[in-house]
């Protein structure tokens, strides 16, 4: 009889450890990344060579769409509920806790304060078809300034970022800078895309 052949194995590697690491990292990245809140309005920002990134926290965001309507948003989703509470108290909007949570899911608000409560209570589908008026900002009613100022008071040292659509006509921006400058808000960060 022939000698007992040693059992041949193919080259093998223990992948358990690698798998562990991979999933640990995966879990970390999923946890660490913040999900994009539902966008109220699509804004295609112009591009620039600037490399500064948007501040992660303590930043309010004023968006201007193609039609020159103004929207208000908060970059850090975890600050939205605190802001909603303060805004509600300051202007007697009477938001309930549930509505404050509802507010924190919105990346932008495009309705005046008076309609805010009703707007939050709409379902997602209703919001899609809702006729957004934008937040008023002109010499008779500069409500947007109140929003931004309230945010500035709530979170000291906060920045104002301006996110304008590339196709927005300049007069809407001029109006924005004029009204804000009259309210002593002079420092802005313009949101742009990375130049390709």
């Amino acid at each position, binding site marked *: 009889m022939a000698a007992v052949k040693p059992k*041949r*194995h*193919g*080259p*093998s*590697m*223990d*992948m*358990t450890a*690698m*798998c562990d690491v*991979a*999933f640990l*990292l*995966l879990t970390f*990245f*999923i946890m*660490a*990344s913040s999900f*994009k809140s539902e966008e109220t309005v699509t804004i295609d*920002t*112009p*591009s*620039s*060579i*600037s*490399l*500064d*990134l*948007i*501040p992660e926290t303590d930043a309010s965001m004023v968006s*201007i769409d193609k039609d020159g309507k103004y929207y208000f948003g908060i970059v850090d989703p975890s600050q939205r509920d605190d802001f909603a509470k303060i805004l509600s108290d300051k202007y007697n909007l009477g938001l309930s806790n549930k509505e404050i949570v509802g507010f924190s899911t919105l990346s932008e608000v495009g309705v005046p304060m008076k309609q805010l409560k009703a707007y939050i209570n709409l379902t997602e589908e209703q919001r899609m078809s809702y006729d957004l008026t934008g937040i008023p900002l002109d010499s008779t009613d500069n409500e947007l300034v109140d929003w931004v100022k309230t945010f500035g008071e709530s979170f000291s040292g906060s920045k104002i*970022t*301006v*996110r*304008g*659509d*590339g*196709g*927005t*006509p*300049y*007069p809407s*921006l*001029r109006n924005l*800078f004029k009204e*804000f*400058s*009259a309210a*002593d808000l*002079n*420092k*802005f*960060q*313009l*949101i*742009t*895309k*990375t*130049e390709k």
Partner: protein
Amino acid sequence: MAEVQVKDSGGGKGKSKVKKGAGKPDMTPMVDLGFLLITFFIYTTTFSKPNTMVYNTPKELPPEDRVEQELDIKVSNTITIILGEDNRVFWYQKPLKEVTADDLVETDYSKEGIRTAILSKKSKALSPENWTVIIKPSDESTWKNSVDILDEMAITESNKKAVVELQQVEKEAYYTKIGKPIPAE
């Protein structure tokens, strides 16, 4: 396990034994998927952030505090850029009061267009430390035009810049140049 399947010859005769499961699942596809997702998450988290550009507007002083400053800005140290309709852009280098339609030079937003104009004027500036760019967006220009020009300021290192309104003289020159009537206020 990542194993190269070696055909078990089984020694030819005899009953082929049913191989007992070793209790080790093949983890290769799982690891593959894991790393694919990691790559995806790393990519989306770092690159989804938009960039920002600092933009400060001058403080608005109440009328009584305004001092009429006699600014000694030499014309050769400045360039005025008018952002027009349909992505058109004009520049001139003249005292404001003397501007006519013929002084406006039309160019475009490309590297060879406005950037070359700024750089050539900048190199001829009498005192480069006072080099100032005056940006005047017209009512028909878009936000993209303004950002593009502000971007050019960063590229050409023109740190002194001002965004101001078109004056009546310039309006006349600009609208004559594009062949349109001056819009009513």
